[in-house]
């Protein structure tokens, strides 16, 4: 099992950032790597169990299922059902925690998965830096943060 962990500090309250990212169907609105997204079967995007079906900007199709959503913990957990990345048993968590001294929040994005040994390093880099840090960088551009 490989684990990838990326965290950052964003200069906006957890409530503000959460309202931006809680929509499971909203990745194209804030993540620069995502081209489009829809929820399968006409489900609403905050129904736990719903499936998002989206394309990355390089054309890859990914299907992910929402496993947990907490407005109390500012967190969501999801798994990959189908993707071109070559990962198995991929479960990721995106979570915000308020930083009480100042209007900031601590953002964590982590994933665990299995993959071919030869691809570990590349996948850790792609997911940790490309997907997760890429998302945080976009949020920091929108809300500020260093």
């Amino acid at each position, binding site marked *: 099992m490989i684990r990838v962990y*990326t*965290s950052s*500090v964003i200069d906006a309250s957890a409530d503000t950032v959460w309202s931006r990212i809680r929509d499971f169907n909203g990745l194209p609105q804030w993540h620069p790597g995502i081209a489009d997204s829809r929820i399968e079967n006409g489900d609403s995007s905050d129904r736990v169990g719903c499936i998002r079906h989206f394309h990355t900007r390089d054309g890859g199709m990914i299907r992910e299922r929402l496993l947990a959503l907490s407005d109390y913990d500012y967190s969501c957990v999801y798994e990959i059902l189908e993707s071109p990345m070559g990962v198995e048993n991929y479960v990721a968590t995106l979570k915000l*925690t*308020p*930083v*009480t*001294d100042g209007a900031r929040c*601590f953002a964590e994005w982590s994933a665990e998965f299995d993959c071919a040994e030869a691809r570990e390093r590349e996948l850790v880099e792609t997911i940790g830096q490309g997907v997760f840090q890429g998302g945080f960088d976009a949020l920091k551009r929108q809300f500020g943060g260093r």
Partner: protein
Amino acid sequence: MLQHVVRSTVIDAPIARVWAVLRDFNSHDQWHDVVAESRIEGDERGDQVGCVRSFTLKDGHRIREQLLTLSDTDYKSTYCIVEATVPLQRYVATVTLKPVTDGDRTFWHWESTFATPPGQERELHRMVAEGVYEAGFENLRRYLRDGGDRRGASGTTMPTALPLASRCAVVHRYGGPEMLQPGEGKAPAPAAAEVRIRQRAIGVNYFDVYLRKGWIPAMMPLPGVPGMEAAGTVIDVGAGVSGLLAGDRVAYLGPQPGAYCSVRTVPAAWVVRLPAAVEDDVAAATLLKGITADVLLRDLGHVGPGTRLLVHAAAGGVGLLVSAWARRLGATVIGTVSSAEKARVAREHGCEFPIVTAEHRFAETVQSRFGGADVVIDGIGDAARDENFVALARRGHWISLGQASGALQPISADRLVEKSITFSRPVVFDYATTPAEIGLRAARVWAALADGTLQAPPIERHALGAADEAHRRLESRRTIGALVLIA
């Protein structure tokens, strides 16, 4: 309602560096401004799960906290308060660090839940959130910026060798209850054969009033701290002390006053360990008084089946214990009390025949109903002097234990001969002089409490800082049962 405090911040240092400081359960006196002294009890290490740290805060408060969880993988430490002079109840706190991979910084999350006495929620919530957590964030930031963590351990001290601050109630001038004033003292590190005790409950005895009034100046010169007994927890022990360890729950009684304080260093020979079932306040309410009862009934009164025992102040701390124990020994227990309410409580505790008399008139009743008393236990003193003579049966034994109403005038030997009366004036400490003797008598008190022979008397609690009020109450004759000061 349980209070929940959460505070968090971001520290501009890698997590390994921050964790190296915070994982040490004994480091706060080096970086947190509110902590004056920190040490780990019992020579354990600061990363030993289960260890107890003892803090002295700069404001004089003392807090003992136990490490419940330490995780180097989760960068997490959970601990709880086991004892504190601040009223944080059921306090459990967790420190969690997380790496900020974006910039190699550290997210620090500090949270706790606790209960408080009613009305203090806001004040204590704020103290924890701002005084401890937020201040701690700033203090650690400064500590790291100044490189405090890189200086090594050379600055650490041996706190066990230091005197500890002790709050006390001190008498600067003999006189009324108002002469008991809050004060600050030091409890020295224990010398050979001594132990230092973090006191929680202190027994108030009428004897303390005599000391305060200056009736026995040789025993308590000025300025002086009264008090002959207390219960609490051992902080540390001096050389050559066996059978007592830091953290042990103990109680003591001793012939030298000084117990009205929060930390006290006393001879180990005075100290007995407390059974788990005996709470600190119960111990403080029953140790000296229970041993007194043991001496009165066993050594002096030879009380047994059929003994006609007259107990004055039968609803007082000693009176209730004497009555209950004497009844169990088969005695006929007659008591004097000053109110119907006290008569009810005295009866509940084994005094079969309470006589309600505010003016100490009882002799006629005792003579007409019982033919006199074989033993009189007298804490009243001069006001009951003539009545006692009349109430005593032939070959009776008058045990003068105290003189709440005023100093007993000399007793003429000629008056004793009229009824072959025996007169005793015992000091209980002369009957508890060795550790073995104290241990044996204390064990009898604990056993009597455990098997129901004695029930703990009603306890009236006062803060140590309000010792004057406790004395006022005791002297008012309005209290029922025992008075205890909570340190």
